């Protein structure tokens, strides 16, 4: 009788899956970076109730949180080229749509998707900071932006970091959708390897373990970072 799992095969594919871990991490890092920018911007637009932009932000948040990520990936993948073709025809933008690698559409979709979720976290974190902090900054003649950058953001970061960690872990797992538009990350590689030997179960076990491992490492890193960011909260002396 054959064993339930082909361990030899499982071990043999580990190096091949490891090779594409950078793709997964790359998508995570780029999406997280732009999501922080998008999330902070929309949070500020909503906090400061900036005209028009506020309505746009509300629409963006509602749409993004009300539609599946997979649909957003397809919209990005099929929609952006159409838009660029149109811009090319009308305004003579000289962009070769076929030259854009698929991963760019993934960056786009993930950044906006995660940005919407971060926006709420960031807004809540900023609003949790005592108003007096900003008033003190203004009272010594700092501009609102200086107050935000030097006083509010560092304190809000300490509040938001655990949430950022959770979002990032979701994001890492969601990158497995990127193969739907043929970006070969861990999940894509797994499917290819599985199809080669028709040993899907083994491949998916290996992939699951690697995702798990990555998430544990990220969790640890966030915990360490949290300690550093919260240094100022110290104990009473």
């Amino acid at each position, binding site marked *: 009788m054959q064993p339930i799992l082909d361990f030899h095969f499982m071990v043999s594919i580990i190096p091949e899956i490891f090779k594409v871990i950078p793709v997964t991490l790359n998508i995570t890092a780029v999406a997280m970076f732009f999501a922080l920018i998008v999330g902070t911007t929309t949070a500020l637009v909503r906090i400061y109730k900036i005209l028009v932009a506020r309505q746009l932000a509300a629409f963006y948040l509602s749409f993004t949180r009300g539609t599946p990520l997979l649909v957003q990936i397809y919209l990005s993948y099929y929609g952006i080229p159409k838009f660029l073709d149109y811009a090319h025809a009308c305004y003579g933008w000289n962009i070769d749509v076929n030259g854009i690698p698929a991963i760019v559409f993934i960056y786009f979709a993930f950044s906006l998707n995660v940005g919407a979720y971060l926006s709420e976290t960031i807004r809540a974190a900023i609003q949790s900071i005592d108003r007096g902090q900003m*008033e*003190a900054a203004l*009272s010594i*003649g*700092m501009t609102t932006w200086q107050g935000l950058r030097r006083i509010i953001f560092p304190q809000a970061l300490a509040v938001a970091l655990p949430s950022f960690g959770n979002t990032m872990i979701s994001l890492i797992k969601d990158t497995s959708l990127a193969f739907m538009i043929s970006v070969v990350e861990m999940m894509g590689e797994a499917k290819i390897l599985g199809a080669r030997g028709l040993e899907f179960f083994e491949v998916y076990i290996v992939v699951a373990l690697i995702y798990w491992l990555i998430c544990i490492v990220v969790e640890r890193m966030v915990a360490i970072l949290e300690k550093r960011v919260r240094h100022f909260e110290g104990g009473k002396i």
Partner: protein
Amino acid sequence: MLQLQNICKSFHRMEVLKGISLTVKPGEVVAILGPSGSGKSTLLRCINFLERPNHGLIQVGDLVVQTEKATNHEILQLRRITAMVFQNYHLFKNKTALENVMEGLLIVKQLSRDEAQQKSVRLLEKVGLAERMNHYPSQLSGGQQQRVGIARALALEPKVILFDEPTSALDPELVGEVLEVIRTLAREGRTMIVVTHEMHFAHEVASHVVFMDEGRIVEEGNASEVFEHTRQERTKHFLQKIQAI
């Protein structure tokens, strides 16, 4: 040094300040007294433009600000020559005592790090906290935090320092150390406006006392005029109540 003309401020329909005019001469210490809700704090916050007055004129030194059409630039200028000491200290929680004092010097005055640090250390020595300069606000007592707050206000060499009930959030045994610092500043001839409930302190330190009620100045004069030769019934009533405690 400072002149206010007909400052009015409403929140929604609530009229909080109903035309306040006040002149403060250089080196004068003005104490503002009055029951809560009389608009004392709002008046101070208006001078610092933390609240935007609906109407009126603020003059500090050479800077004249017509409040209803104040530009962002004017507001920034005004804030840079006035400084506020808050009731709840409002020290920057993510910065040490030293960094709290340095912040304005670095960002607003754009001094070099060395200069800002030297100056800040001197100010912390002055308020008696040099050995605590690397502590975060969470590691300081209320009195210590408030003294850092005063050093932070002094750093920018403001023309007027505004104290918004600087001791009312403090434990009774910590009030003295903060009042002592303010007393020192008064002796140095700094121009200050202090909103306070410390009557003895007001009597002792203030060169000019203002009594406010319901958004108006009811009575003003030097300390003995207001405290001992009170003219207005409303003021008498208030002072009696306070003394009864």
